[in-house]
């Protein structure tokens, strides 16, 4: 996987180190909190930002998730990773925010936020058509239901297994597998016609396959 630069902060934290920091955070140790935040913030933010495509909302949700996590850190179950717990809280807040938005403005207007700024380096997706397909892939991901979208992001981007995703989505593993299956089916339905009208589909796919 050729990720050109790490935006995800430090490498995954060693489990015993994590537990040590959690213990200290329970005693309101600012440095421990700082270390926990720094280790997880960018990864969490990337997930939430992809769910919302809105910097302000995503930042607010991440902030809420951390504050809720610290406020209730006494109830943290050490059998789980801190990140799992954090993503669970963030996912809940995300769902509530999406619900409120829908309540206020009907369906989300994805066209407003669908296109992010073009990648300056474009390490892959060299050709125009490959770039277009890549953009279409994200637009299709945006069209998935929140649960399907979260599943796809956690599975592919965060490299989580179905069990961990089930914990985060607070749903049975079978439901996660179903989300993944339906998400793939929908992506295929949305993207297949796009690819069909592109000339040299094999080459385009080859470019994006990295």
């Amino acid at each position: 996987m050729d990720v050109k630069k790490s935006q995800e902060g430090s490498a995954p934290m060693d489990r015993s180190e994590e537990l040590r920091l959690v213990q200290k955070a329970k005693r309101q140790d600012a440095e421990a909190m700082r270390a926990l935040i720094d280790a997880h913030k960018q990864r969490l933010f990337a997930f939430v930002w992809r769910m919302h495509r809105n910097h302000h909302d995503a930042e607010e949700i991440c902030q809420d998730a951390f504050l809720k996590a610290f406020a209730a850190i006494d109830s943290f179950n050490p059998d789980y990773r801190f990140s799992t717990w954090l993503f669970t809280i963030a996912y809940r807040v995300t769902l509530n925010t999406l619900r409120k938005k829908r309540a206020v403005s009907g369906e989300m207007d994805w066209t407003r936020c669908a296109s992010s700024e073009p990648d300056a380096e474009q390490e892959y997706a060299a050709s125009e058509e490959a770039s277009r397909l890549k953009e279409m892939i994200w637009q299709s991901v945006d069209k998935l239901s929140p649960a399907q979208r979260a599943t796809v992001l956690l599975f592919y981007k965060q490299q989580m297994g179905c069990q961990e995703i089930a914990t985060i989505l607070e749903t049975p593993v079978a439901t996660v597998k179903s989300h993944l299956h339906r998400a793939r089916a929908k992506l295929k339905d949305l993207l297949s016609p796009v690819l069909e009208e592109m000339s040299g589909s094999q080459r385009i796919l080859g470019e994006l396959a990295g």
Partner: protein
Amino acid sequence: MNCEQSQNLFDAYLDNSLTGTLATEFGAHQLACSHCRRDLALLEVAGHVVASDNEAPLLDDEFTSRLVECATSKPAKRPLKFSRALWVGLPAALAACLTLVVLFGDKDAASNANDKEIAPPSVLGFNKEVTTLDELRANVNDALSLNPDNEELKKLAETLRERSEKIIGDTRDGASLLQDYSEDAIRELIRSVPNNTQTKPADAKGNNGSQDDAMQDRQNGSSNSRAAKPPTEEL
């Protein structure tokens, strides 16, 4: 193997769980069928694009400091920069809650709340904010038990019951709920409640976790994977 059978195995293939003869047959079909081959490649590419995503903007440097300061200060305050929702929702909640206090609640608690800058509004004797739908329901039900004949309270209790059944497991904060229930309706209701209701403050304990849990169970249909249950969302 036909195309339908092949497509049904896409998940297993993509999750690396396709083995044995099925894997061989699947592979043979892909070699022979350009349609399936293309769809499969498309899904692989979609997964790859998501996996290699690094377009999320970076959080600013102050994020951590702001949060640490906020998490360690007592009572926990929220950084102003991001509390738009709070400030939009709070006035409505506060107005409604304080009105409730005047009619149902402990008068001392209400005046204390006015004295303290960050004191949460007290509702029906709770010295805490109405934070969840369940909590609001509990409060209204308490008020109803004191005023069993109040039609408006009955209506509100019923609305809240329907709402919480419709949005199972919902943890929306009380502020936004009050907002979209309509502040006017609540004010009207409060005005209509007779004054003999300032007697016993509602029981502030045990109305949160158990109801939340029950709703969560209904939502999940299974208690699977609940050990990491995070805190109930609060305002």
